């Protein structure tokens, strides 16, 4: 599925292939509009809505960048019919390894980061190996991985947090040094990891769309048996997505560590929930074979802006969870609900026509409307 198809082409083809990202994009835009309108109304249309002020947008981007990086590889894992519950604990483990390397083992900054990312790659490869060579569900393997990684992390850190002296600060430098928001007058911040997120997303999108590897990944997730018979090495493909996942979790965890300066077991808490939520909001199917990076990026921005918007509207933080949950359910079921509605409309229309015209003519009724089948 093309994520970068031109809008004109989409309009022409819309009956046969509604763009996968249209539904979630619509909901996201509606959400932004509601927040902006609420802000405008509450200030009597006198102030610029702070939700879409540059400083706030950059704020949201800083919040979502790390989960966003992991969401890119999670998209690939899920397109290949997998899932990875271990990313949160793996991120915590990486943060502890890197911070220990820097502050206790005296490895130096770059080698420490390399060891941390390397550990993530090795552990994910191990899980990927088991998943691709056995018939055990990836859900179970990565659940086991999650628990085991927690154990390793706690053993390494003696169940204590590892405080650093700002050795990774170079990863959080402000690339917009000295610029101020024209709306709020606050200092604008753009750390490198925000750019990193966009670079990773761009690369992921290109790989999925424009390489043999990417196209085959969809085939593997869509129908592994048919993929095998079409000459695709399904096992190696399945293994590869977990290797990529390890690499990106390692990078993401290092960024997160740079932000909070402390290697700690809670660093990655909930990362797996957030990334999976972002990916499914973006339209990737749990059953594999479907999804794309543009959708995932929308999902990342959407989920990230919910908490922020709730703060803007001065709603209690408890409401955030409720809203997040509802958004996941809405985004995932909206496509299905809308197609059911149109199917129902087509059916009603057909019945009405069936009454007015002789039965021979009514048989062709299903061809128009939103019925997309092209039976010949």
């Amino acid at each position: 599925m093309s994520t970068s198809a031109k809008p004109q082409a989409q309009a022409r083809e819309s009956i046969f292939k509604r763009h996968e990202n249209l539904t979630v994009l619509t909901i996201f835009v509606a959400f932004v509009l509601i927040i902006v309108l609420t802000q405008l109304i509450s200030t009597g249309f006198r102030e610029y809505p702070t939700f879409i002020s540059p400083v706030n947008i950059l704020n949201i981007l800083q919040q979502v960048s790390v989960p966003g990086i992991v969401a890119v590889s999670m998209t690939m894992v899920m397109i290949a019919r997998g899932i990875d519950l271990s990313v949160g604990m793996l991120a915590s483990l990486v943060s502890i390894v890197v911070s220990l390397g820097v502050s206790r083992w005296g490895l130096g900054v770059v080698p420490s980061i390399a060891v941390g990312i390397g550990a993530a790659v090795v552990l994910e490869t191990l899980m990927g190996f088991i998943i691709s060579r056995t018939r055990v569900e990836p859900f179970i393997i990565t659940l086991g991985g999650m628990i085991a990684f927690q154990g390793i992390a706690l053993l390494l850190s003696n169940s204590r947090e590892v405080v650093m002296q700002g050795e990774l600060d170079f990863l959080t430098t402000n690339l917009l040094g000295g610029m101020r928001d024209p709306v709020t007058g606050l200092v604008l911040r753009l750390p490198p990891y925000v750019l990193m997120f966009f670079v990773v997303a761009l690369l992921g999108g290109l790989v999925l769309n424009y390489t043999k590897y990417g196209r085959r990944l969809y085939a593997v997730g869509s129908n592994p048996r048919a993929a095998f018979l079409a000459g695709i090495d399904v096992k190696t493909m399945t293994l590869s997505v977990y290797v990529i996942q390890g690499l990106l979790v390692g990078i993401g965890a290092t960024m997160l560590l740079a932000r909070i300066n402390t290697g700690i077991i809670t660093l990655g808490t909930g990362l797996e929930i957030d990334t999976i939520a972002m990916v499914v909001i973006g339209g990737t199917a749990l059953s594999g074979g479907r999804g794309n990076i543009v959708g995932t990026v929308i999902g990342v921005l959407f989920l990230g802006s919910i908490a922020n918007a709730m703060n803007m509207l001065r709603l209690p933080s408890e409401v955030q969870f409720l809203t997040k949950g509802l958004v996941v359910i809405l985004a995932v079921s909206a496509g299905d609900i809308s197609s059911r509605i149109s199917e129902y409309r087509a059916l009603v229309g057909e019945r009405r026509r069936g009454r007015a015209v002789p039965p021979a003519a009514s048989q062709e009724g299903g061809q128009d409307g939103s019925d997309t089948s092209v039976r010949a």
Partner: protein
Amino acid sequence: MDEILRLENVSKTFPGVRALDNISLVLNRGEVLCLCGENGAGKSTLIKILSGAQPPDEGGRIFFDGREVTLSPHSALRMGIHTIYQEHIVFDDLDIVENIFAGFEITRWGLQQRQQMRAETERVLRYLKSDLRPEQRMRDLTSGQQKIVEIAKALVFKSNVIILDEPTASFSSREIGNVLDIVRTLRADGIGIIFISHHLDEVFDIGDRAIVLRDGRKVSAYPIAGLARSTLIKDMVGRDPASFYRREPVTPGEVVFAARHVTGNGVHDISFELRRGEILGVAGMVGSGRSELMEVLFGSAPLISGEIEIHGKPARHASPRDAIRNKMCFITEDRQGTGLFLEKSIGENVAVANMVNTRGLVARPADDLRIGAHYIKLLGIKAPSARTRVVNLSGGNQQKVVLGKWFNTGGEIYIFDEPSHGVDVGSKQEIYKIMVDLLKAGNAIIMVSSDMPEVISMSDRVLVFEQGTIAGELVGEQIAEETILTLSIGDRKA
């Protein structure tokens, strides 16, 4: 005799096909009525009507115990009409008692009466002279033992009619003996039995009367005592060859593919040669090892011993990738399960297999669309564009997408497993024409088929399979329904 079930002028029409045409039959208590006919003769449809799974067309009448009835799955069970299908429908992880009573548990105040159900199960198993224990798990039983459990299930509840669809397919001879003994016991107890089997030995062993179906019509009905085998076979085949598709002849060239003593995946010692411009038909009953051999040749199942030669050189196919690189193509029987990516577009489906042969890392969606558009035009696929998802296409057009996928690999040796399975008559002719065009272009085809007219009209030579090995090879004038059927039911005497 005492009549239990009667059909009068029952027909069943599917869009474009008359699966059953004016069938009338009577089943008496305490008799075994055998339904005979080739694949696609209408046996399965008839069973579905008797089990209530599908309603007959208007106009036909069904009588049960003298009263006219309408059959639904529920009412059929209430009347004691039990159907035991060829495929087992079991709960693997539950035990025999739980399987038998699934959905019909004996309860008191909402609690299961396990003891009572167990006792009932034991009683029936004893009646069937089976040494199975009620608490054995289905997973641990052989398919023959599972069949016995299914029969037991029919007997635990009131039973007047039992329909057995290929009850002995893929069984060992001892298990076949057990099942036939059980059928005799049931008959002695006054149950009416409809028995369907490809194995004529069993029909003659156990049947009282036989009805022969062909192309949805009842051709003949006679008592089995005194019936000659040849009469039965003639009636089962007897289609008019003039109605078959007429294929353009192509002169065969040199040998491009050879199997030498190929063994593995349930087939043994298979040897044959295939020439350029030739269709080698592979006939035999379902389960005789035809598709299993194709999997071995294509590298999707391991070769245990023997050799494959391509253009005279030995070839090793460790996976389908090797086979594709050796210019082989495999159009599988299960189009949707193993041939297509249903949710993906025509373009993506067509482009994927050739990635084995292309250089570099890049694969652009625009290329998929271009290739897709090419094959839409070339093969006459009815779709608005290469972006159309294949799930939205008809069976015939889906099959053409599969063909496009393989043409795109530039293959020369084609394996077609049931090439026209589940496609309408028009598409069938088109697919045949495409196959002949392939031959003219110098390719070679191995065609597995259960469709007798297809085998006869398309094949230059026919290999007939029986029990995992070649029962015989037919050439030219020898290729006829009667010879093929005779070989495939293991009846080499006739």
